């Protein structure tokens, strides 16, 4: 579907001529182009087409005898609108009177009081007097709609925005209206709690105090708080947020509507995990291992110890950089490593190095689609990524495209996806066989090559691959997961992906392209800042090629590396190869970690721990998967003794004899930008509050070129034969993060091991849904709760990674055994 055309029309609004895009709803056009507010309650553009339920927006349009709902009348050329005649005023007053007759006047104790649209509208358009003397409607209140949301049905004005969100936006279909007439109330179908990945959005949608955040309830009034805009760094979707701050504490997170990023929605992790900023478990002072235990020490001692240890290790230092690291921190770290220590052993990718040429080809600006393209494309291919877990807010964007834009959606993943129900076709390939699937797709698109062989290697039906290939017409956006390029087959998978992109003609095509969802939030920014073993800043050639993450683990385990620097990374939970990493951390003489929480690897092995800033405390930039450079702003003072991590990195470099010249976070930004040719000329001011897609700037031409295919592809290796065992697939749940575990309100969502099986395998193994099962691989065994999924492919079992206990990282695939525990 093409993007909406912006044809302008002129209409008369209260005697003035106003020009606005044709067919824009009158309420929007009046506000945006005519500076006249037509009051609304039920109308919310983000929810889709208007429903005209609250009747608050009644206005007079010449030539139409009845008053019209301004929310649902598209503006037309020559239309004459009156919003302030006695007749309109009376009708609006009347609707407000109707709304208020059953609304309790408990504003002084209501969370919404002071930031309440109903209050504002009552002041602006109400009569100020109620003629209603009868008893109001009563409900039991407040009730827990879920552990996160309280519902006060007496305050509800039945605009049913929340119900529409649940049905038409998140499509979880949990909220409904029960009963009818004045007895109508919002509920879930069978009274179960409304638990869903995006449930918190209804709190912000509610125009009254009927839906309130339980963690925020009674914590502050609007006059106690300040709003501070920044970006959520809990996943690669990088939603724009606004922190509600009271007394240097973050009390709430609200959306900061950005059409190019989040479309104004947040997932519940982004909305509620702020609680982890203010918990006792957080590391807020430097720690030093002393007699086997981590003890708080002074900054001076911690820095001295770290600097001395690094000096001893010198080039025998390896560094792992986690996704929540800002580009500046990554850039400083690579200077610390390369210049101060002379080591090139640093990596921000978990799955092993990829050829620099391939990094360049995949990251080329001409090939990058933007987030809104997901909504306006003709076809979207979701490839080896589960948006709901890996970049949740994009799940909503894709659904919106399918629902309103007629996007043809194809899903190609190992594990059944939440988007399957909306997909024209879904293909299930064997875990790790994404490259083979792409080979097959390449063959189908080019009508050459061994489609059947590649499909067999991927474990899919060639017909299904053909169906996907046939559906990829017009503007195609491929949303793919970084894991596709992990492991030994990663390079071949990358080449196959480039082939597919070339066959589809995605390069340079407006509204089409690739979007890579990296494994970590700022995966893209870190690569561009030079946090790769084989690339410097700007994806330039590195002076010396170093070890990638698996090689660093092996090197440390073998005693070749003696110091490990973990910048926001815990290899034991975040990276594959847990056994090697265990040995590496054990062997290393020094392990320096920047950490917010003492996760297993840090707790057991770190010798020095520097407290990590939370994202509400950080200054710096991160890069969105679609190339948008976004700015983190400090919302609160650093907690405890935490220092700016840029300064820790700069200080260590200084003590090791390298003056980075960075004296303030903005200097780090400026110096980094100066080293990245395709960022040239950028400034924090230009990045501003909405970010800048560097791929759209003229300077993008400076991005290093690389051959983009088509390449000749080797026949992919077949997925391992199961031999009575099951293939192991892994996934990282949206809720698998230390922030979720540490947030009191979200803790209930923190996952335990869930073993996903197909019904056929479950029956064969005698495993019942909900029963405890054991899973054993070469590396060890774990137990978990069996989850029988009808859509799961037979022969494969899926387990969670990145959880503290029973993580799939303990197992070593590719084949595992499962039995009832």
């Amino acid at each position, binding site marked *: 579907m093409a993007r909406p055309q912006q044809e302008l029309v002129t209409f008369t609004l209260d005697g003035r001529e106003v020009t606005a895009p044709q067919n824009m709803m009158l309420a929007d056009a009046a506000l945006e182009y005519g500076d006249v507010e037509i009051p609304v309650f039920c109308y919310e553009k983000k929810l889709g087409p*208007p*429903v*005209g*339920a*609250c*009747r*608050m927006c*009644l206005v007079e349009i010449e030539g139409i005898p*009845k*008053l019209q*709902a301004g929310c*649902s009348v598209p503006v037309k050329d020559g239309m004459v609108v009156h919003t302030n005649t006695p007749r309109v005023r*009376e*009708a609006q007053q*009347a*609707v407000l*009177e*109707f*709304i208020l*007759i*059953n609304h309790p006047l408990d504003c002084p104790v209501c969370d919404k009081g002071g930031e309440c649209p109903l209050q504002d509208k009552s002041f602006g358009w109400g009569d100020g007097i109620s*003629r*209603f003397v*009868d*008893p109001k*409607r009563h409900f039991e209140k407040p009730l827990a709609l879920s552990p996160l949301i309280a519902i006060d049905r007496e305050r509800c*004005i*039945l605009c*049913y925005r929340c119900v529409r969100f649940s049905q038409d936006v998140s499509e979880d279909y949990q909220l*409904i*209206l029960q*009963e*009818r*007439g*004045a*007895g*109508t109330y919002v509920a879930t179908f069978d009274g179960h709690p409304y638990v869903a990945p995006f449930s918190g959005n209804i709190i912000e949608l509610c125009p009254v105090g009927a839906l309130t955040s339980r963690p925020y309830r009674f914590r502050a009034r609007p006059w106690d708080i300040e709003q501070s805009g920044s970006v959520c760094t809990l996943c690669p979707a990088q939603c724009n947020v606004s922190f509600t701050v009271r007394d240097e504490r973050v009390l709430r997170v609200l959306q900061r509507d950005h059409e190019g990023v989040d479309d104004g929605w947040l997932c519940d992790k982004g909305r509620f995990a702020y609680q982890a900023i203010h918990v006792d478990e957080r590391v807020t002072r430097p720690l030093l291992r002393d007699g086997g235990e981590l003890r708080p020490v002074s900054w001076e001692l911690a820095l001295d110890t770290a600097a001395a240890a690094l000096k001893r290790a010198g080039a025998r230092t390896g560094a792992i950089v986690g996704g929540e690291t800002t580009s500046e921190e990554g850039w400083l770290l690579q200077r610390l490593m390369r210049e101060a220590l002379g080591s090139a052993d640093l990596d921000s990718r978990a799955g092993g190095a990829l050829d620099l040429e391939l990094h360049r080809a995949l990251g080329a600006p001409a090939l990058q689609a933007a987030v809104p393209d997901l909504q306006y494309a003709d076809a979207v291919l979701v490839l080896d990524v589960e948006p709901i877990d890996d970049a949740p807010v994009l799940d909503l964007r894709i659904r919106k495209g399918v629902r309103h834009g007629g996007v043809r959606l194809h899903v190609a993943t190992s594990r059944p996806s939440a988007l399957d129900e909306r997909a024209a076709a879904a293909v299930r390939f064997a875990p790790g066989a994404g490259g083979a699937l792409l080979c097959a797709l390449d063959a189908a698109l080019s009508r050459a090559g061994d489609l059947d062989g590649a499909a067999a290697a991927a474990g899919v039906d060639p017909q299904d691959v053909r169906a996907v290939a046939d559906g990829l017409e017009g503007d195609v956006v491929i949303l793919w997961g970084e894991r596709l390029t992990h492991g030994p087959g990663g390079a071949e998978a990358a080449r196959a992906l480039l082939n597919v992109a070339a066959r589809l003609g995605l390069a340079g095509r407006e509204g089409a392209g690739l979007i890579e969802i990296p494994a970590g939030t700022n995966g893209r920014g870190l690569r561009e800042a030079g946090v790769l073993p084989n690339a410097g800043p700007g994806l330039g050639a590195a002076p010396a090629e170093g070890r990638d993450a698996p090689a660093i683990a092996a090197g440390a385990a073998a005693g070749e590396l003696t110091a490990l620097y973990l910048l926001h990374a815990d290899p034991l939970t975040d990276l594959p190869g847990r056994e090697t990493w265990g040995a590496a951390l054990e062997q290393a003489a020094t392990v320096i970690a920047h950490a917010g929480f003492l996760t297993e690897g840090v707790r057991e092995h770190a010798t020095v721990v520097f407290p990590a800033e939370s994202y509400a405390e950080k200054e710096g930039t991160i890069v969105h998967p679609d190339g948008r450079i976004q700015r983190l702003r400090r919302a609160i003072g650093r907690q405890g003794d935490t220092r700016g991590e840029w300064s820790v990195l700069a200080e260590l470099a200084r003590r090791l004899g390298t003056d980075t010249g960075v004296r303030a976070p903005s200097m780090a930004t400026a110096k980094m930008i100066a080293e990245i040719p395709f960022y040239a000329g950028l400034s924090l001011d230009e990045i501003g509050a909405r970010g800048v897609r560097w791929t759209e700037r003229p300077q993008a031409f400076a991005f290093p070129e690389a051959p983009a295919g088509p390449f000749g592809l080797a026949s992919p290796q077949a997925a391992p034969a199961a031999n009575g065992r099951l293939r192991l697939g892994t996934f990282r749940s949206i809720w698998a993060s230390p922030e979720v575990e540490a947030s009191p309100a979200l803790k209930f969502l923190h996952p335990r091991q869930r073993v996903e099986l197909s019904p056929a395998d479950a029956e064969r193994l005698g495993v019942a849904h909900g029963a405890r099962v054991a899973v054993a691989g070469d590396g060890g065994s774990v137990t978990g709760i069996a989850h029988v999924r009808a859509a799961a492919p037979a022969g494969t079992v899926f387990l969670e990674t990145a959880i503290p206990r029973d993580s799939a990282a303990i197992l070593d695939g590719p084949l595992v055994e499962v039995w009832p525990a």
Partner: protein
Amino acid sequence: MTDILLLEGIDEPGLATIEGYERRGGYQALRKALRMPQADLVDQLKVSGLRGRGGAGFSMGMKASFLPQGDMQKYVVVNADESEPGTFKDRELMQKNPHQLIEGIVIAAYAVGATKSFIYIRGEYEHQADVLDAAIAEAYARGYLGESVLGSGVTCELHLHRGAGAYICGEETGLLDSLEGKRGNPRLKPPFPANQGLFQGPTLINNVETLSTVPHIVTMGAEEYARIGVQNSSGTKLVSVSGNVRRPGNYEIELGMRSRDIIYGLAGGPPEGRDVKLWFPGGSSSPVLTKDDLDLSYDFDTLAKAGTMLGSGAIIVVDDSNSVVDVCHKLAKFYAHESCGKCTPCREGTSWTVKMVGRIKDGTATPMDLDIMASVQDHIIGNCLCVLGDAMAMPVASMIAKFRGEFEAQIEAARERREQAFLTGVGA
């Protein structure tokens, strides 16, 4: 006044079976219609002047002509959710002559190019649903329904769907939502069903009586049909007369008959010694008329001019043994109960009105409440999403306007009764 079309031979045994219907010449109109070009059929419907019999009185031919041409999936939906208090004409038509309706549906579906049709029947009409189910099966067996109706190549599928007992599902868009399996709430219009109706497809939605009339128009010819009745109100109409009359029931009249002749002539008027106090000319949602209005011609335009409407043709007669406040209370309670709750003025206005009338009855109202009541009705009328709010507000407003004296007297009487009861209670 000898034109009996819809109710002709209605009580003949076996009429509900296909043999009985065919014996009376049934399905001949369909054969004739299938030989006519579709556009001619729609024209015929326009020329006949047939206006919708469900309540709104919109020209059926016009409505049919609004459906877009083209190959998209179109639908005919029959509104058999006869829920308006006082209305029971469709029940008799479906129960006693189901094939007349089916024939009308097939003709209409052919005319507008719809291949799928649905009858949405109110849940309480269990027996009628059984009769229709049997009739539909018969019609399929005889080839009047199916992939190729009577071998003509015209496809017409017909399904019966039972409602679950909500008045709002008689509102056409609420009906469509309900038929789609959703909560039966009215939709925002436009788009109108003719463009985007059932499952977003162009949909012709008509009342049972309207579609039952179609075969007669085809048989006798539109011009002939248009000669029945008066200007702008052609044809015959079923009226359901109920309330305080001696012979309640369905009567088929020629539009333009004098109202007094219906109420007194056909239905026998109120019992001995009683007089008409007020009457609803077109179902409980029509503004009330008084005994002074009995000489009005019973047709669409005359009643509209008198500030009310012909509606579904349900005449409810209230004699002078009744209190207008009771009538008002019952009526308001019905609509408050049936309001779907989607739009504010209807949801809140109906329940507020019930509370206010309730206070008149229990002696806690003041004459000022009457002004508030009248103003609340004003605020409902024309401001709602659908017409359900108006359906309460218009008759209530008309009762307050026409019987204000009685309201005031009852406020005072109830207040005194309450005072007395209180004084007795405290032993004064």
